[in-house]
């Protein structure tokens, strides 16, 4: 499994043509305590850059963009019932959704860890 990032502070764990998406620790810190998570519908088609989820902290709402084009194959309902999971385990149990990727060429547009570190300082 390979972890990539987006400039919008999402992480993408890639396993073949499947990708698990969440927000980075930097993002959860910047947002503060999350109080609401809206997840996409399983089975829905999604384009790279489209709004896939919404997370909302005590401060503000924030869109989560799909890092890849494909289909939503699973969502982490635990984050909707307990949004604080995203704060406590942003890169683990606080993952948001999984995509079956239809255009693997898009993977090359994601950031590796060192490139993301440059942004998230």
């Amino acid at each position: 499994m390979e972890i990539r990032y987006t400039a919008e502070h999402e992480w993408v764990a890639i396993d073949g043509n499947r990708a698990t998406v969440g927000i980075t620790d930097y993002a959860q810190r910047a947002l503060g305590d999350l109080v609401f998570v809206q997840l996409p519908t399983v089975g829905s088609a999604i384009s790279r850059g489209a709004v896939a989820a919404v997370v909302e902290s005590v401060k503000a709402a924030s869109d989560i963009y799909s890092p890849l084009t494909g289909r939503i194959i699973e969502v982490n309902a635990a984050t909707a019932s307990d949004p604080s999971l995203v704060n406590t385990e942003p890169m683990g149990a606080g993952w948001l959704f999984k995509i079956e990727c239809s255009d693997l060429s898009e993977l090359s547009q994601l950031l590796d860890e060192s490139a993301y570190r440059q942004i998230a300082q």
Partner: protein
Amino acid sequence: MEPFAGCAMPIQYALGILGEHRHTRAAAGLFDVSHMGQIILRARSGENRDAALALESLVPVDVVSLRQGRQRYAFFTTPSGGISDDLMIANLNTCLYLVVNAARIASDVAYLRERLSAHCTVEVLTDRALLAIQGPSACAALSALVPMVAAMRFMDADVFSIDGASCFITRSGYTGEDGFEISVPAAMAATIVERLLDHASVKLIGLGARDSLRLESGLCLYGHDLTADTTPVEAALEWAIQPARRVGGARVGGFPGSEVILSQLSHGAERKRVGLRPDARPVREGAALFADATSSAPLGQITSGTYAPSAQCPVAMGYVPASVAHIGTRLFADIRGQRIPVTLSGMPFVPHRYHR
């Protein structure tokens, strides 16, 4: 730190907004609210009643019968009946002590001087810090420094000495909890903060939790829930206009916008500030309110909204037509095209726990 009305203000400290909010309701939160304006109004005649009479020309509130050692909520009204700021007025025997909103200090002071200088001096206390300690443990913590505060009741105001310095203390605040606001010489503020923080139950609280605490308590924020375009009756603040200033009272009217405000007190306003409980997700300031999920004509607007950490649900305030301003009415808030059902609710969203 974030810029706020010319001050660098902490949005949150180590606990985070949710943790700070819950800590304040469970124990005691300490807020640095020194950005707020502190003003002393003193009658040139030396009679505090003359300062009260003068101030009544600017607020629809009974200041004259505000007894020594008591505090009262008030607002400056505009000629069209709107609100140009909300404030606290305390009678400190030889003077009136006013606390106004940070963003309104300059205009409030200019206004007070322009309108009241013939009868009063207007002194801005730029050399004083203002601290608020709020929550069920606030009294125990402050009593360790000033034992006399334990005898105060909600909205009492008095002058005490801390280490020889004169401090104005009121048993009030803006969280819905029991607590105090403490005006101290700026040079002493850090020492007093440290001594209050010595109490294990006291933690520093930032602006973020201050906002969720006041909103959950149904308290208005100037510039958001109250503006020059909202009248006190529309804002459901009739309770702050005492009988002496109403029709039939000893000093009826005589404040800016009195015709509009007295008429609305008698006949009602066309819109009202109401509490709202959104289904599922928070709705924010500026969201339009609709009668149903599809209509295109908004009937109102959200003026404050957040997740309420103690009520454990999203809460909001907004203005709606009086015809629908009934508890239980279902409306829809628009969040970027998504219609979120909201239910009109009584306020506060959590009970006030003042020490009456």
